[in-house]
């Protein structure tokens, strides 16, 4: 009966049936199961514009370097507030029409940062446009490709008011008399990136990350928050340096310098802490700064502010967690009396 050595029919049928059975167990059934999810209650559907942006994201192969999955392990907590769950992909991983399947957004390489929460981390449209036109104009050490074909370089006098102008630093600017304009595609792509934000779980439920190693868990920082235990420089590099640059000099025409800044060097750090907590849009020559109140703890803000006030020739005093806490309370009271 099972004379595989001599009967080619039996051999082929056995190999086929075996493989198909195993494939159904390990791929087809679980895949069916995974389709059966609902979006989270507050999860926004994608707009037409954002979906177009997703198409460009796929067209340019962004997925080969950028993941969109926050794994349930501790090292991934810098990419999101909680581990990703199947519902997160409810809208973005729909089939892209007849010719193309649903986009492989989870990715397998993290040559660039994870983008699950990029819309929250970096909401500034100006930053994204600069970064797409030439990543090195805002992140000097970046190895990301430039996408100049998402932009037009035109004579300055032909630019109309409703077009989005990209203000580049001198080293990257086109010859004088020319202006860089963001095409529709670039704006759609940025709209998509801005829409990438983790939706919080209903009833404030928290998904936990698996801690790195036992030893780390026990020898972690003690509860009494000691600003010194947080590395202000590292936090600055993670959170602030993409705009203000690692040397604190900013980008002319986009992001103001912190080195030698009056606000940063001021004896009283109140205004500086307020800007970090609430964001800033008072100067038209620079891009808008986002609010960090939701993203950073008091201790983290204190560590970052201390780093900024004592680096690059700055001579400000140290900032304590207590100071930040007071200002935060004051602002909260101000907003909800």
């Amino acid at each position: 009966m099972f004379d595989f050595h001599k009967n080619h029919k039996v051999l082929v049928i056995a190999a086929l049936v075996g493989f198909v059975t195993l494939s159904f167990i390990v791929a087809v059934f679980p895949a069916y199961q995974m389709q059966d999810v609902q979006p989270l209650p507050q999860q926004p559907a994608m707009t037409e514009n954002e979906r177009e942006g997703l198409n460009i994201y796929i067209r340019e192969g962004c997925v080969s370097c950028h993941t969109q999955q926050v794994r349930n392990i501790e090292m991934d907590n810098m990419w999101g507030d909680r581990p990703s769950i199947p519902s997160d992909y409810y809208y973005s991983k729909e089939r892209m029409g007849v010719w193309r399947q649903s986009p492989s957004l989870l990715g397998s390489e993290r040559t660039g940062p994870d983008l699950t929460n990029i819309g929250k981390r970096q909401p500034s449209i100006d930053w994204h446009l600069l970064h797409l036109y030439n990543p090195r104009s805002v992140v000097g050490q970046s190895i990301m490709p430039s996408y100049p074909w998402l932009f037009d370089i035109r004579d300055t006098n032909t630019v109309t008011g409703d077009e989005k102008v990209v203000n580049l630093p001198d080293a990257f600017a086109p010859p004088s008399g020319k202006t860089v304009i963001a095409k529709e595609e670039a704006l759609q792509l940025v709209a998509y990136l801005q829409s990438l934000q983790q939706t919080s779980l209903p009833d404030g439920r928290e998904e936990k990350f698996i801690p790195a190693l036992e030893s780390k868990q026990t020898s972690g920082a003690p509860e009494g928050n000691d600003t010194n235990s947080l590395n202000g420089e590292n936090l600055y590099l993670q959170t602030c340096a993409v705009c203000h640059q690692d040397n604190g000099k900013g980008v002319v025409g986009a992001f103001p310098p912190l080195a030698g800044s009056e606000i940063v060097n001021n004896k009283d750090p109140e205004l500086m802490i307020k800007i970090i907590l609430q964001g800033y849009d008072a100067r038209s020559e620079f891009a808008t700064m986002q609010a960090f109140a939701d993203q950073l703890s008091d201790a983290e803000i204190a560590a970052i502010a201390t780093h900024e006030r004592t680096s690059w020739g700055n001579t400000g005093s140290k900032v304590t967690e207590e100071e930040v806490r007071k200002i935060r309370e004051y602002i909260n009271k101000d907003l909800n009396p």
Partner: protein
Amino acid sequence: MDYSRQIFILSLFFLPFTAVAQTTTVNSENWITSPGIIGTLVLVFIVIFIAVLIFMSRLNSYVKLLKHRQIEKKNLAFNEELLALQEEDIDIILQQRKSGLKYRLKGTELGSDQGAVDEKGLIGRVTHEPENPLFDEKKKTPLGIETPDELKKIVTYYLGASVFWLVFGTLVGQYVGMKFLWPEMDHFSWLSFGRLRPVHTNAVFWGWASLAMIGLGYFVIARTSNAKVYSYGSAWWTWRLINLTVFLGTLSLMSGINNGGGEYREYTWPVMLIFAIGLIITFWNFYKTIASRKIADIYVSNWYMLAALIWTTVLAIIGYMPFFSDGLGETVIQGYYMHQGVGMWFMTFTLGLIYYYLPSSLNKPIYSYSLGVLAFWTQMLFYTMIGTHHFVFSPLPWWLQTTAIVFSAGMFIPVVAGTTNFLMTMRGSWSHISKSYVLPFFLVGVIFYFVGSTQGSVQAFRFTNYVWHFTDFNVAHSHMTMYGIITFILWACIYTILPKLTGKEPPQVLVGAHFWMAFIGLFAYMVSLMVGGTYKGLSWIEGNAFLNSVILMKPYWLWRAIGGSLMFTSHLVFAYNFYIMVNKRKSVEPMRVSQVGQVNN
């Protein structure tokens, strides 16, 4: 020996990581996934494996015993025959023996009293310096196997197209690798990193490896079935379809049309459909040829090749079906598809090729047919289940991840069975390796089969995944397997068979150059990305700013580019060797008798 030293260095590199993998617990709740349990399972499998070996040796000794009894019976019969002989007959036999013992050689029996004349034109080359000071002289391939011209042509054309895609695909790969160092190399959308990366992987997958495998496979089925290929016409059709697939696929990827970015699934379904049709035609052609075989048994190579064709067809269908690919369903299918693309197509088919070409180039049978069969069924069972190990710690169901990890460990069985089989086939022929230009390719391929596959299994464990996932280590692993195993074995097979088909050998120095540049290049490529990838993973665990991990990779990316350049150069040399082997012009004229005489004087 050089090889053993390289293997030693290689194993040194893996030891620390495997050791760590066994001692650290990531999570104690899921006991089934703890390394200890997995390790135990492996040990149990090893015990079962050894039990099977012992059982087989028992069986063997029983068969020997039966044989021994038969021989004793024969001896008894012979003794009786001697006793029955007459006196005169014994005298005659003794006389013959006596004169035989007295015979002495005169010293001229081999014709040393005659002049040396090569009447039949057998001598191809005469040298006065038998010791080449720079390069070891390798043995010539015994030329000429009687093969139908049609089959020769098919094999040659398949290999020719595959060589083209190899050079093209790795040129793209080389260019893409350099973009890590100089991201501003060009500003054309068609040449941007995100678009070219899949061009590279798909061209070497479906263009180079697939075409070369099918071409080499056609020779094996005809030869091992002792039959004519069922339909030459459909072989040509497949050739056109696959080349068309890669051509259209490349164009569409560069213009920005892709299937959604899933690795190896970037060609859209209309393009991949062409490939699938080619596969189905090839399957039918192979199947009918094997059905018409002139011997009862199906040689084990054909098991592997038939299965690879049928499994890959199923795989392509499941991979591209729209019914279960929304949301994370796509991710499940993606893990399944990208792993099986490698495991069920390239690995399975290539194993089939080794089972024919390795013994044939050593001119001896494969060590164990049964081990080959064991490896075949376990390949199907274990390889199919492990796709999700590409998504460990992802939002996919935990049980699916665990299954993948456990079965990854189970992959040791087919891998050890295969490696043992190949190494035992080579055993006793080690001296041939230094004398052959084909066997080093086989040896490297087989060693990488063991090291690359085992390393992949170990990488699936949760702790190792913790450090290495998302880093450049993955890229090192995929080159270790697709290049170290598949490509080296394909080269070995090509150098084995092509000179026999065309009657022309490549220059040995250039084959050596090809081998060493590819090998050293791969080594530089692999080690730099493994070391860099590990540092990158550790940097992430430390919680450093992401940009630091980019900056720290830069020297490793440089070494990767250097390794890649060596690999690419070796492909140019290989392409030249291929040209020499298939070139229509006559090779060096066989030396005339009169000339031989002159040289001798």
